[in-house]
């Protein structure tokens, strides 16, 4: 799944540690999602969407879309 997490995080000037702390995950988790090696669970995806104030579809996009 493709995502715009790095772009959204950079726009707010947050570090990976800072973003991780805001949604309650480790820096490694943010790195794994940003590098698209790991697709987050629905609860985590919702947390991220709520934090950035955008719908989930604006952050994550299925590969085949």
């Amino acid at each position: 799944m493709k995502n715009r997490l790095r772009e959204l995080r950079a726009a707010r000037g947050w570090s990976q540690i800072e973003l991780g702390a805001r949604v309650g995950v480790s820096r490694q988790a943010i790195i794994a999602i940003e590098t698209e090696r790991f697709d987050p669970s629905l609860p985590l995806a919702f947390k991220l969407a709520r934090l950035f104030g955008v719908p989930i579809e604006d952050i994550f996009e299925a590969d085949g879309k």
Partner: protein
Amino acid sequence: MEINQQFRRNVRTFYAWVGSMVILGVAPVAASRLIEHGATWSRALGVIVGVVGFVPWLALLFVIIRRADEVMRRIHLIAIAITATFGLLLLITIGWLVHAWFIEPPDYAFVCLAWMIAWLIALLATQRYYERAR
């Protein structure tokens, strides 16, 4: 969870980790001494001490993995799966080498050490995989 509370929990976990490592180091020495004593009760106690010495470290590891987020849990799960496969292959290989008279039955401490090193390598490699860009 509040940052301060989380920090305290991490400090407690660190001390528990150090404690479990000390037990992990001391237990085999104590167990060996008890076994060398020779009496049946002493040897039985040595076995118990040797096995139980591993439990705090394993339990703490389980707690740490359980507390971790979904990515870290995935990383640990994959690393454990790789290590289990390696361990089984190692035991099968040693078994056949002994069966074919190429080697003497190895010391279990060596097998255990090889398995733990494989675990560490698998953990680092899996973590590296998840950090590397596609």
